């Protein structure tokens, strides 16, 4: 730990926070920043980014801490100018370099007019002027969080502090990734850090594989036991609480599990909950699969609040997916997590979690085993 103490010496620290509500990172980010601020002992700590709401409480408690949240401005005013601005990406070689392997179209051609427009719009509608409030010189940069599809946060903030010379060229940048370390939703900024702090050896092993030249540090006392979403008393019930925690990447896999569950005699033995981003999500699922869902009468767990954290803690079994939320990491002690990978993404993304199940049948079979174990325990 002495090594970590050395890296974290600072008088004026800038922490860049990157929440991603879809990955439910907020509570963990706040807890990590709370500990970091305590550890840093800096006279001044500025937290800038798309800050989870819990940070406001922290800032209120700690006079040395200042929040610069990047808030939404509302809609872009000039649609024509916005489109002209977006089309200026035409010259960006990146999007032309990434060619679709079969059709030969480039990424811009395929995605330029819708896939990337939404995140670009979201980024244009953020109030970046608040960055004027950054006051250096900062002697330490820390990036905490994951990555968000619509917010080019670390790049924008780093560009601002560099252009205004709020940091010296030799200022260290420490990364504290939260959420899945691999896959398309993983923190993309890790490679820009000078050092990465991780909660335990497993994550360090993944980092060494992904970024062999990047020094990593297990920082157990700073980061361990962070995943404590909400403390709950285990509920005693005849039926097991099973939460299927899917994201937008996994809709057909969710359907495959539900279909398999529907064929098994588990309905009377489980109480099923399904995550959803909003009421519309659940309505959409009803519109598609009402005949399957009717049998289970699932309870919907919306992922934008405490309800989600509580459900993850309360569930006897959580069925998760590769490249989704890293519930398996939160529940490492508690267990009862099945990770699904029906499409072979583990290989594609070098998934760092436990061995996934490769088919709906295997998933349900593992669920049956867990139900049997739970029955024995009770």
């Amino acid at each position, binding site marked *: 730990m002495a090594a970590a103490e050395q890296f974290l010496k600072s008088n004026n620290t800038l922490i860049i926070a990157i929440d991603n509500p879809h990955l439910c990172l907020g509570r963990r980010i706040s807890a990590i920043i709370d500990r970091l601020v305590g550890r840093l002992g800096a006279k001044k700590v500025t937290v800038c980014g798309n800050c989870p709401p819990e940070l406001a409480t922290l800032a209120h408690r700690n006079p040395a801490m200042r929040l610069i949240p990047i808030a939404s401005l509302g*809609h872009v005013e000039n649609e024509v100018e916005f489109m002209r601005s977006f089309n200026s990406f035409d010259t960006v070689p990146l999007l032309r370099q*990434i060619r679709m392997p079969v059709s030969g179209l480039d990424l811009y051609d395929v995605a330029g007019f819708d896939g*990337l427009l939404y995140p670009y719009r979201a980024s244009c509608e953020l109030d970046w002027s608040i960055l004027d409030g950054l006051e250096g010189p900062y002697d330490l940069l820390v990036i905490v969080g994951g990555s968000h599809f619509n917010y080019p946060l670390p790049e924008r903030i780093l560009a601002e502090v560099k252009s205004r010379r709020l940091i010296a060229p030799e200022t260290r940048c420490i990364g504290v990734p939260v959420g899945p370390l691999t896959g398309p939703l993983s923190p993309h900024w890790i490679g820009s850090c000078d050092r990465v702090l991780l909660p335990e050896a497993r994550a360090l092993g993944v980092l060494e594989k992904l970024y062999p030249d990047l020094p990593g540090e297990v920082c157990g006392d700073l980061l361990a036991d962070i995943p404590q979403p909400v403390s709950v008393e285990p509920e005693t019930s005849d039926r097991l609480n099973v939460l299927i925690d899917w994201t937008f990447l996994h809709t057909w896999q969710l359907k495959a599990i539900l279909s398999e569950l529907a064929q098994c005699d588990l309905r009377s033995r489980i109480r099923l909950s399904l995550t959803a981003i909003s009421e519309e999500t659940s309505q959409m699922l009803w519109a598609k699969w009402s005949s399957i869902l009717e049998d289970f009468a699932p309870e919907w767990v919306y992922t934008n609040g405490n309800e989600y954290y509580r459900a993850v803690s309360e569930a006897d079994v959580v069925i998760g997916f590769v490249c989704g939320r890293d519930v398996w990491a939160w529940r490492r002690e508690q267990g009862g997590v099945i990770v699904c990978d029906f499409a072979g993404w583990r290989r594609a993304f070098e998934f760092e979690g436990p061995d996934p199940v490769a088919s709906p049948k295997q998933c349900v079979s593992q669920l049956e085993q867990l139900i049997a174990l739970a029955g024995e325990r009770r």
Partner: protein
Amino acid sequence: MMSAQNAKTTAADGSAVIEPGCLAGRRILFFAGLVHHYQRLAPLLCRLDELGANVIYATTQNVNFGCDFKGDFEVPLVQAGKRYIFLPEHFEAEVANDLVLDYRRAERTIAEAVRSTPQWSIRLSVAAVRLRTMIGLEHDRLVRKLLDHVEPELVLVLHEYNCWARPLCAQAIARDIPVLSFIEGVPYETLPQGMLNGQLSSRICLWGQAHYRRMVADGAEPAKLAIIGAMHLDIVRNTYLAEAKQLRAQFDLSPKKKIILLLMPRLCYLDAADQIIRALTDFVRERRGYQFVIKWHSHDRVEEIDRLCTCVNGTKHFQSENTLQLIACADVVLCSGTMAGTEALAFGKPVIEINWQGRNVNINYSARGIAQEVCSPQDLPLIDEIITNGRPKPIIEAVEKFVADTFSTLDGRSVDRAVGQVLSLLNPCTKS
């Protein structure tokens, strides 16, 4: 609509002969690249079914960066009782391992770009590019599997300007499979020049001369373009107008009052939505003979709509209902630069453009002289003026020209003409 069992029919342009069963067993792949793609082409798809075609429906997952699941593409197909191929479900496991090398290569490209040209990453989320890249690479392989599996004789899409349809069109053309595409609506004024070039279609069916001119100007080959009319409007316009009384009863609208219909765009495109709604509510409340009706965009969240409706009493609200049926019931239609205004003009309804705080979405009606605009609550008496005296003559004349130019002919035969194009692509010797 004409039955397939009828005797042979000549397409309205007098060229193609449509006989019952003339498409028996022909494998036509329809791909829905967004929710409304099926809805727009449903009249043609039904007709192809009737003519014996083996229409294979396919769609994919709506992965809109996890913002929400508004509009999963397969829902209209489920509601229509169609069996369909859902790309990830059918082929994802097959393509996942192939994806590895492509994705790694793309990741390297992205990482190099971040290092060498950091300015773009300040404006566009790296995470979005990564995710879109992964999704794009996978989709490209999924559609290849789809074509391998279906071996269609013809690919049918609403249009090629969509990230889901585009790779499919490109691959089909590369395999010499003809692609028949259509056009979604009036070309938005915000679309860049040169975009509507039809390069990935064998034939593009257009609504009217306005489309033709725009596409030729954008570089499309004139030989690929066929003006067939607007199928979604053509069939129903006269029916709905004739049934307006019954429709009013169906929607529980007053049979005697003047219906002021506000067609809302997505709320994210109308900053002043609450002010507009409140002003219109107050305006109508002061007049006995009017009824205020709001048609919300089907993609807007219920809670957002509820928030805006708290101040509005005595107003009828619709969201999932048929917009064209509501237009048929209306006496005056207000819109904010969306294409629905064009449809209202085709129905012969006076359109008033709302230009409260700028931000026309797609079409500037008032600048084209086909609608008058209201820019503030003080302008709302324009509604009284139009209801009492009608629209000014220059506007009526401009609208006539606009509708004729945009929709060519609304003679109830546009589906026939589309079938004619299908036949000519399947049987190249058929004159189209």
